[in-house]
């Protein structure tokens, strides 16, 4: 499977549950925007490494909402401490999906350390996370997303990007639209 297959499964869960979704910098954002552009999506255009951190802060602030972050292997390697911080909190409304395609997909598929010996699921467990799942098919991801609202899901994927166009919305518009949902008190 490729990243966009994972994004399709995650978008389906977001549409079904009304979850808030933080999408990682680069092509993951563009692919999500292309397959399903809804106000529940926050497109992170800069700050590589911080999608999982934004998701954590949001999940802790909104225990009444489900939160999902789509991250990548390169980004997790850049902010590996996030796995320890998530483990120290383990919010029951937060899923971090790490699409591990063993490459920096947005910059030309240069191999990351997961193409060699690094096992991000083992790192996540070693950091103290109790619910860590590994899937390698869209069906497996769908089943896991159906069965849980928290934990870390490592999706083993092949490198490769779709031709999703650039996001035309301004950063301010992205934030304003997202916060119309994310900061609004639940009834």
């Amino acid at each position, binding site marked *: 499977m490729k990243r966009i297959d994972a994004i399709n499964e995650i978008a389906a869960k977001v549409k079904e549950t009304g979850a808030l979704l933080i999408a990682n910098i680069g092509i993951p954002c563009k692919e999500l925007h292309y397959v399903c552009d809804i106000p529940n999506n926050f497109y992170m255009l*800069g*700050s*590589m490494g911080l999608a999982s*951190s934004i998701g954590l*802060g949001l999940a*802790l*602030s*909104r225990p009444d909402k489900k939160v999902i972050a789509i991250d990548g292997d390169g980004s997790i390697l850049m902010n590996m401490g996030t796995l320890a911080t998530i483990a120290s909190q383990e919010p029951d409304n937060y899923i971090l999906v790490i699409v591990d395609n063993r490459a920096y997909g947005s910059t030309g598929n240069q191999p990351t350390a997961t193409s060699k010996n690094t096992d991000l699921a083992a790192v996540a467990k070693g950091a103290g996370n109790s619910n860590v799942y590994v899937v390698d098919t869209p069906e497996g991801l769908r089943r896991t997303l159906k069965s849980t609202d928290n934990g870390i899901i490592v999706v083993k994927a092949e490198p490769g990007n779709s031709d999703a166009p650039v996001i035309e919305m301004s950063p301010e518009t992205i*934030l304003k639209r997202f916060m119309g949902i994310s900061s609004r008190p639940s009834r």
Partner: protein
Amino acid sequence: MTNSLTGELTPSESIFEGLRDAGIDFIVSVPCANLKELIPMVDEAPDIIHLPVTREEEGVGICAGAYMGGKKPAMLMQNSGLGNSINALASLNILYKIPLLMIISHRGVEGEPIVAQVPMGELTTKLLDTMEIPYFLPQKGVDPADLIVRAWNEAYEKRKPVAVLLPIPFWRKQ
């Protein structure tokens, strides 16, 4: 400049009071020796979510997420951590117009015993100036708690990061 106008509060207590007055309800921290009294106060406050983070850049991301969730976020940190945060402050907070209050123990200036603190100590205000991040300094006759409130108000109104720089002499009274 070493205590609040009441003369009764320690430096940490006056900062804590300022955080309460400003309505800060979400705090991340990376320790500094000068923050050793303040961090437990924040941790024990029932109406403040506090989490220790591994690195300041991570804290910037977590605070941005908290703001999106309707919280008023602050980060307790040492100025060395400003260096760890610059890309995130620029390409997340400044890009999207996300407020953040940074309460910074400013090391490497007057009274610094550790030589390794000096380079970042001297660069701190230059970096903030370059990034057009406003910063507040303790002043004689100004309650530090008011300083915190003013700094948060500026962050919120301008939708950007704002720093409060608290140098070594400020903390001496602990």
